């Protein structure tokens, strides 16, 4: 089955009923996308599918046919990733790839309230979210300066 994975046209052999999450991790070797719950609640497996955020644990691989998939390995928002490091926005780090994916879709002028609403589908158990807000806000400020 053919899809565009992190910008490259890729052929992947996998059963259509498998979860996109498993195919990415096990067939494509992209283990940056994490599984936290398998029920679409925690957002750790967030990827972009045709430019939209989705939880890959709820996407049957069949639906990824012809789609453009972008994962943490291909997100390319280095300012954001740098600030997740420097602001301690990552603690245990298991939610971080999903957080970065969601944050990468925020516009530069996103307010704190916009950020909170956008991240409501990504659970973090370590940070209380505050350092994540700081990381996103400072990354946005740095790139627009």
């Amino acid at each position: 089955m053919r899809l565009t994975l992190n910008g490259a046209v890729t052929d992947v052999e996998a059963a259509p009923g498998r979860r996109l999450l498993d195919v990415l991790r096990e067939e494509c070797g992209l283990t940056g996308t994490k599984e936290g719950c398998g029920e679409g609640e925690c957002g750790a497996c967030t990827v972009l599918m045709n430019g939209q955020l989705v939880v890959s644990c709820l996407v049957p691989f069949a639906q990824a046919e012809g789609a453009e998939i972008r994962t943490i390995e291909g997100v390319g928002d280095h300012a954001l990733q740098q600030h997740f490091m420097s602001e301690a926005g990552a603690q245990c780090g298991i939610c971080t790839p999903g957080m970065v994916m969601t944050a990468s879709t925020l516009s530069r002028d996103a307010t704190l309230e916009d950020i909170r609403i956008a991240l409501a589908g990504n659970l973090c158990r370590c940070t209380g979210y505050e350092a994540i807000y700081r990381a996103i806000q400072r990354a946005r400020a740095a790139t627009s300066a």
Partner: protein
Amino acid sequence: MSVVGTSVARKDGIGKATGAAKYADDLSIPGMLFGRTVRSTIPCGRVKRIRYDFDTTGFTIVDRRDIPLDGRNVVALIEDDQPFLVERDVRHVAEPIVLLAHADREKLLAADVIIEYEVEPPVFDPEASTESLKTLTIDKGHLDAGFAQADVIVEGTYRTGHQEHVYIEPNGVIAVPEDGGIAIFGSIQCPFYVVKALKSLLGPKAHVRVVQTETGGGFGGKEEYPSMIAGHATLLALKAGLPVKIVYDRTEDMIATTKRHPSIVRHRTGVKRDGTLVAMDVEVILDGGAYITLSPVVLSRGCIHAAGPYRCDNVRIRGRAMLTNTPPNGAFRGFGAPQTIFAIEAHMDRIAEALGVDPVTIRERNALVPGDTTATGQRLTADCSALPVLREAVERTDFRRKREALRGTNRGIGLSLFYHGSGFTGSGELRLASKAALELTDHGVRILVSSTEIGQGTRTMHAQIVAETLGIPYEDVDVAQPDTTLVPDSGPTVASRTCMVVGRILQRCAEDLKRRLGDLTPAEYYRAHGPFTIVREHEPPGWIQWDDETYTGDAYATYAWGCDVVEVELDADTCEVRPLHLTAVQEVGKAIHPALARGQIEGGSAQGIGYAIVEHVAMRDGVMANASLTNYTIPTTLDTPAMDIVLLENPYEDGPFGAKGLGELPMDGPAPAVINALRHLGVDLSEIPATPERVMSACGSR
């Protein structure tokens, strides 16, 4: 150069932000099988018969008879009472009975194992249980004489529920046959606990190596249970002669693994009209679950903190942890203290109300000051900061004015004052005799400890302490991955001890190394003399005196102190409680890395807010009925209040650069502050979580 006290980049930051960091489930080993645990479905009884109702070709099947002859079927911890696999008696739902492994996960999950039982009546109510796992009494002064001085006696009963850790990475390990024994790679807080458990399983002479992989959160939840999972993976791997991976899905993780102990705490307190506490009689009951595991020490820490950070000459604290037919409860950030601090802090507001004074006044009147003694008779020194944190929080939030201003609105404001003992209780650190080491490398030094990075910043903070002590750049300090064959046992990563205790040993190692290096840099010395390693053992302060029999003496080397103020909004129609703002003033000795220290407080406070409001484990017939992230709700961004964090520093003389333990402290404060904010709104609730249903009952639906 000064690196301590600055917020340098996390050692593990970029790997986590790019997805490159490898967690247990990210690893795959050629030939690896997948493991599955078949568990009991009854809370109490006996296994009568096991039937394998599937084609067993390609399966590895393990039951109790596969325990090696040199080994024992017990997860060695404090007591040896919990088996790896049920022998005959089942004490709780989800107890492991049979293990399966197969290369194909679909076949593995489809395999039908039918277990027949003889069912016995279970006990779920800890107060109805007749079997105690541990009892203890703390006695100070003369309770009767104290009550005789009292003008007012205030009584109250406070209850807390289970709390699930919800580390976002579920438990997982891989066991790999190695050198006639086993190597474990896994999501683990305490690698040497796993070594101890596997040596009991396989026999003392067995080769056991435990390596911690990147760990997606622990909070106590990966303190003792990974020993069980590692044992299961080991049995399967040794029987199959192949690597075996066991990774729990969320539901299994929630149903089978440990939770915070539910508690019932009863207070009877004698107070003088001027607010002075003269007698405190406290009863602490913990629901321990079906095996002893860590309940004795959780009870111990809970009881020691049960009188709160207050001066009182006459105190009796009686505690008991009771057996129930539910999965064993275990370590969870705070370790018994959040339960008892909740009770005393909710109780203090009721005392204030009974006396007609405000919540600040009653605490100012009784807060511990240097020279006072705690319930165990420990005399506090200059690093006692109860009043400074209280005053800072009150001033910063303009608490008294705000409390008046909010009267009659749908908002309430409450506070809590708390403390948390750093390191193991009493003589625990002496018994642990932790070791840490520093190894010279071609470009600097490498830290060798078994203390794990589970998100809190272990690697970063340790590297800062070593770099500062040696006077070398932070970048020149590496931190070895914990591998029990390569690093010394620096003790478990628990009890707010990783900075204060292990950091202090590393500081001593670095001091030794610095003397040895003379004028040379580590790299120059390495080139001239080759590699070497310095190992040091923990030296607890000599003044610590503790009596395990009478529960008297110096319970902890030091305490960290906190005062939380929480403002909540109550929807009168739905009784939903929304936390709007949290101010946390916490005195941590010295913040080695201010951003990480703040991160601990923000994260711990969010867990405390969850504990207070939305986190409800629904136990039905001895099993968690809402075992999913859909139905067990932890705070999202929109459930977490805006936070104002204030770090105060009052150095502890024997901590590295004055640091105390801070990991657990922030868990203690939010729940009572929320309940006290609700009390400010006129809601008389003494149980958490404060679900809308409970708030409604407390209000009386109109």
